[in-house]
């Protein structure tokens, strides 16, 4: 844990996505219950899928131990993956909502 080449960008990605919505897009996504419920369901599926990809016994994806916080939960999932997933999915949902607003 020195460079945090994954931890820092993952945190920044989440902050950037939230800043874009709150400061600029104003789609109202964060006020929709359906969004938060969807994120919970996505999280429920991320755990088995990501758990499979990152399992230390036979990993599909390997991380440089110096670039992550070292916190891996649940299974062997680097916690940074949850920030990465949140940013990716939320960014796409924001663009989806943005096109609803335009109509």
């Amino acid at each position, binding site marked *: 844990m020195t460079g945090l*080449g*994954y931890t820092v*960008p993952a945190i920044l*990605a989440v902050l950037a996505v939230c800043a874009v919505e709150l400061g600029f897009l104003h789609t109202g996504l964060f006020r*929709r*219950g*359906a*969004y938060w*419920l*969807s994120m919970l*369901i*996505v999280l429920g*599926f991320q755990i088995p*899928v990501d758990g*499979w*990809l990152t399992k230390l016994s*036979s*990993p*599909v*994806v*390997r*991380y*440089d131990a110096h*670039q992550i916080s070292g916190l891996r939960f649940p299974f062997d999932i680097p916690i940074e993956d949850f920030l990465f*997933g949140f940013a*990716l*999915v939320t*960014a*796409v*949902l924001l*663009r*989806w909502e943005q*096109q609803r607003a335009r109509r």
Partner: protein
Amino acid sequence: MTDPWQYLLVLAACLVITAPLEILGPGVYRQPRRLLRAVLPIAAVFLLWDEIAIAAHVWTYNNAYIVGLSIPLRVPIEETLFFVVIPACALLTYNAVSTIVDWLRR
């Protein structure tokens, strides 16, 4: 052996499991332009992140579990598809949840 197909099979499973959600509400695949406009620009940004992370060896892929094709510069084809497949699954989930929440409110 199926090992090199592992990552692709995981992505295929995600698409298969979420596909039935398309029948709910206005759907996602039935709005192809909206789908592509939502997914592609974000996929491009995350692919750039991926290229940098791979080049800097922040993460790497186990050659035993990928088919060996990649896009320039170094991103495996599976990872490229990940940025389209996972957002599509998330949109299908959001579409389904939104539709059901609307039903319950009526």
